């Protein structure tokens, strides 16, 4: 069963880009550009995830969060906003939002966050991601390859999870950097750290699986190749 995501975003271009990405990633996506329309949709259907912009033509998305949570507590609310104020984050999270993604974000990052939310509300079930011989247990944050426990550093683990969620997609070094460091590389004056992480991760995966799953793409990004 495909999961349907409700996207409330007033920028039509961005709305289209996000929804087409989500559909390509195997979700259904209902789009709307205002709180009123979003409310009408939400009353009719049960969405596991709501992507919510804050600055909307008919009001502040923040005020909409308690309403969503009051109707269906297990809906994951992910704020997508250009407002990067700590106050907004705190307000959003206090009002019941589950995550906050600041624009401009990488679609692969959006996907990772959606997956994390879906897993979070999947209470009771084991949170395990399987990829060929690699098994990633997100509850204990451990990786087993061919039945053998392999130790990964925190950052290597984050990267591997990111690849497994976005398998088959090109992940740019910028997107990887932001995922691992939570910041744009410009702010840290550095963009080469990600090569180090990637080299370590690739070596480790190759050493334990014997296969070079993570491929370099055009020299600017990486991709978890699941064809072989």
């Amino acid at each position, binding site marked *: 069963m495909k999961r349907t995501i409700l996207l409330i975003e007033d920028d039509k271009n961005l709305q289209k880009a996000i929804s087409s990405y989500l559909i390509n990633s195997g979700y259904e996506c209902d789009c709307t550009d205002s709180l009123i329309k979003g409310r009408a949709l939400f009353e009719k259907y049960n969405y596991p995830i709501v992507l919510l912009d804050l600055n909307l033509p008919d009001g502040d998305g923040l005020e909409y969060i308690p309403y969503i949570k009051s109707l269906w507590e297990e809906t994951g609310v992910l704020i997508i906003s250009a407002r990067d104020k700590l106050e907004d984050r705190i307000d959003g999270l206090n009002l019941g939002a589950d995550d906050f993604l600041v624009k*401009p974000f*990488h679609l692969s990052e959006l996907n990772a966050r959606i997956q994390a939310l879906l897993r979070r509300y999947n209470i009771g079930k084991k949170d395990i991601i399987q990829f060929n011989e690699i098994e990633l247990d997100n509850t204990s944050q451990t990786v087993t390859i061919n039945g053998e426990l392999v130790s990964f550093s925190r950052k290597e683990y984050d990267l591997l999870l990111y690849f497994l969620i976005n398998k088959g997609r090109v992940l740019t070094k910028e997107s990887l950097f932001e995922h691992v460091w939570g910041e*744009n590389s410009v702010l840290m004056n550095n963009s080469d750290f990600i090569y180090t992480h990637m080299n370590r991760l690739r070596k480790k995966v190759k050493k334990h699986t014997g296969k070079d799953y993570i491929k370099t793409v055009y020299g600017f990004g990486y991709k978890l190749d699941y064809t072989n």
Partner: protein
Amino acid sequence: MKLISKINRSYIKYGIILFLLIDILFILLMNYGEQQETREELISGTEEIEKIIELNGSFPNFPPQYENYVVADDYVNSGTFKDTVMYNPEEKEMDEFLEYSFNKWINGKNYKIVHRHEAETFGRTFAMITPDITFILTLLFLGLMFFTRKVSEDIWSSFNLNIERLNRFSFKDPTKLELVESDIDEFQDLNNVLKKMSDRLSNDFYASKEFTANAAHELQTPLAFIKNKCEELFSDDSVPEHAILSIRDIYSSADQLSGITKALLLLDKIEHGQFNNDQHISVVKIFNEKVEHLKDIIADKQLHIDIINNEESQPLMDERLIHILIQNMLVNAIKYTPITGNITMTVNPSEFQIANSGEVPISNPERIFERFYKETVQVGSTGIGLAIVGKIAEHYNIEITYSFEDFKHIFSFTLPNC
């Protein structure tokens, strides 16, 4: 210099000149007055001698005061004054005298009658009068000073109160500038001008704050769109490779642009004091946290990291800002330390240092914390990371010094509020 001291100093300066002038003028007036009086006395004195000679037929001579003698018939003197110097038997010295002489026919004889009086010399009058004048003027002067001080305290009280309020005033507070009303027109004018100016500045402050926030904010959505579109194309197998490389350039520029807008927004927020959740934060703790974050990179470069904790340094800072500061310094050190090099962080009570191995000293150490300055043309360096460090340091009055010793770059951060 305070206005009151300035006034008092002028009082003293001009007071002394005025005092001298008054003194001299007084002496001249006194001298003139005394002389007039002496002349009258001399004339009336001779009239008495005249009468005595008339009655007694003679008058004894008392030189130098009184002299009379019979002179030739043709001697005519209707009365002349003259200054003369004579021996004064009382004081036993030569003295200045004013002499009045004239001739008079008494009982058929032509008499010359001379009457002298000690002259009031300038020096004598000066010595006599100066102490009095000094005393009176000093008294007057002290009184005036006391009076001025009292009046000035009263006049300036509202002014001083306003200065204090202006000093404490900050645009970051939502309250408007409130000044004490004054009944002095000049001060009230100043108050009005200040109020108008502060209102305008405060409007500008908010407008500029809003503008940067809006500009940065409005840029993010289209940037998100560009980046997301590119990302979609990257995974689209129908796009030819050469097109992918162009898209790659567009994507990378958009990402850089978004980083720069974020950095500018951050710099602007620091400048506008929007990070104000200050608390005492352990520098050592943050160092350790950041080292832990970066341990993969550190291991890969085989760097040796030391933390020397001499005494815990806990500056009063916003947690996010001290995190950014230490992270960017550490990232910078890791980036520029050669493989197998050392990084040492030393924490002292009111200072912390980050030192890393290097070959040559930085050529422009005073410029590396400037916005967009790059010491070397290196790929992946924007020059913003250290500009943010510089801005944070400036915001908290932290002094950054750079030195190069024993093949080590040493950055010292001197904390003002420990």
